[in-house]
């Protein structure tokens, strides 16, 4: 019976602390094997298609990426093999079917194709599924589009559906290992848009449920979104191997800020949660890598109202357009609000004083420099053409925030968040001049 329909028993598990990260795909006397996908597979038959991962020579595990009914059916990983299996019954003799695939690397689209050749069973002579092996480039991202094409009645006939799409998991990312000592250890940076490998030692659930585990899943919730479930149980001839688990790779959404993880296991009609005493394992998610999706930058540069100082080579985009927050909210650390204290400098003095910032005397290079342990905000503006408003000082238009690596970051209205090394890059007709710098110690 699937998890989620029976009485739930809270497992009192010890809290986690950091420690070293053992290699996955190993087995020790106290811990269990954790296996990763060797390749990903898409299987097409008439009227149905299925995605699964393959590890070892024969082991497979069904995966369901389409958890909300809108996503692609299949998942693949950059730098890994992706195998497409097509049932011969989808075509008639003489239709010469082909598989086409198209994916993006660094913003460039590449298209390839291969004929579908159906081998025959040596004994029965029946046609067997055709297999095409695709090596997904290490820097591929986004969606790989699959389509099937055949010649019917002398004309090309294309079979394509958005459900044929393959979501490519990026190669760059972090790992979290939930080990047999009840610790959770992170290797690498957890960043929006990157991949995340979850390595769960099944001995944790075995200590609570015993040997006869019948199901196990990892649950992942980004911010307040619905939780996603990923299968971590490995079945051997219909039975769960309680001494091994599958390490799912997932992609962190580009706009995610935080993540909660917990695990559910089932045995003998009971469901237990490995959830840090019900609090779940919580992780902050860092900003996406600059220009993870080349389209973000092109959208900004292609806008008819584009900021004049922005060029291809002097900024990176950190996410897609986002109308949920503005630059002032971003300057004080919120990605959920539109904040506007007024358009006078005194209004911003008051706002930033509430958050512990004090104004600096200058906007020179020293004021704008990166000082470890100091957080800085710069505001921008211009003198109004209206004399009555001009008398009240500059009209504030924008705020930028310096982040830990010394770059300045700007949320551009309802457009993207960007990083620009030089805070003066965005000066110009839209935001005016840099007016004032505020600072606070961390």
């Amino acid at each position, binding site marked *: 019976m699937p998890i989620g329909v029976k009485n739930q028993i809270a497992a009192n598990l010890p809290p986690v602390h950091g420690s070293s990260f053992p290699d996955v795909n190993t087995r020790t006397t106290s811990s269990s094997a954790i296996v990763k996908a060797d390749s990903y597979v898409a299987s097409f038959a008439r009227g149905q298609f299925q995605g699964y991962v393959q590890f070892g020579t024969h082991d497979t595990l069904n995966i369901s990426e389409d958890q909300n009914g809108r996503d692609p059916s299949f998942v693949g990983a950059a730098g890994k093999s992706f195998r497409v299996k097509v049932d011969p019954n989808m075509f008639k003799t003489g239709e010469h079917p082909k598989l086409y695939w198209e994916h993006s690397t660094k913003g460039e689209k590449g298209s390839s194709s291969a004929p579908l050749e159906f081998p025959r069973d040596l004994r029965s002579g029946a046609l067997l599924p055709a297999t095409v092996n695709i090596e997904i480039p290490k820097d591929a991202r986004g969606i790989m589009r699959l389509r099937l094409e055949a010649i019917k009645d002398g004309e090309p006939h294309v079979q394509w559906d958005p459900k044929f799409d393959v979501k490519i998991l990026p190669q760059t990312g972090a790992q979290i290992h939930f080990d047999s000592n009840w610790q959770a250890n992170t290797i690498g940076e957890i960043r929006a848009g990157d991949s995340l490998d979850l390595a769960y030692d099944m001995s944790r659930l075995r200590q609570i449920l015993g040997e006869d585990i019948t199901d196990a899943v990892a649950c992942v919730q980004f911010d307040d979104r619905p939780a996603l479930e990923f299968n971590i149980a490995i079945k051997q001839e219909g039975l769960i191997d309680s001494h091994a688990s599958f390490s799912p790779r997932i992609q962190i959404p580009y706009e995610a800020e935080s993540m909660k993880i917990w695990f559910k296991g089932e045995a003998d009609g009971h469901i237990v949660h490995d959830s840090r005493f019900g609090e779940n394992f919580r992780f902050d998610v860092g900003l996406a890598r600059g220009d993870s999706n080349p389209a973000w930058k092109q959208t900004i540069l292609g*806008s008819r*109202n*584009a*900021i004049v100082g922005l060029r291809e080579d002097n900024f990176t985009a950190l996410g897609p357009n986002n*109308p*949920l927050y*503005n*630059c*002032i909210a971003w300057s004080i650390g919120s990605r*959920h*609000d*539109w*904040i*506007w204290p007024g*358009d006078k400098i005194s209004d911003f003095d008051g706002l930033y004083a509430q958050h512990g910032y004090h104004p600096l005397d200058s906007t020179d290079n020293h004021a704008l420099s990166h000082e470890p342990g100091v957080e800085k905000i710069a505001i921008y503006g211009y003198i109004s053409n209206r004399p009555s408003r001009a008398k009240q000082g500059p009209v504030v*238009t*924008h*705020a930028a925030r310096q982040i830990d690596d010394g770059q300045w970051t700007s*949320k*551009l*209205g*309802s*457009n993207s968040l960007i990083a620009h090394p030089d805070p003066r890059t965005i000066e110009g007709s*839209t935001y005016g001049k840099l007016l004032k710098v505020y600072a606070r110690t961390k």
Partner: protein
Amino acid sequence: MIPRDDFEKCAREWQEHIDAHSFTANPFVYIEHDSFENIVAMGKAAIPLILEAYSEGHLFWGAALVRITGKDDFGNGVTGNLGAQRTSWLNWSKEAEI
């Protein structure tokens, strides 16, 4: 009854104004336009059309609802958590069976 064409013309003009200022940080700029005032002037009869536009469109429709209804318990529709305000207005419309 508000002619749908009249409403859609105003909505389209307002959207163009918002798009033209999409780099602007000051959210009050987005509602400084005749098309916004014309929508508000349509009064309560425009509420079903506004809710329809609000469910898919930009986040500043709440400002029009606040002006028309005088109801500001979800926020002013211009500042604050505009995503949450939209959810509150759409839930309110279901409860009010609008």
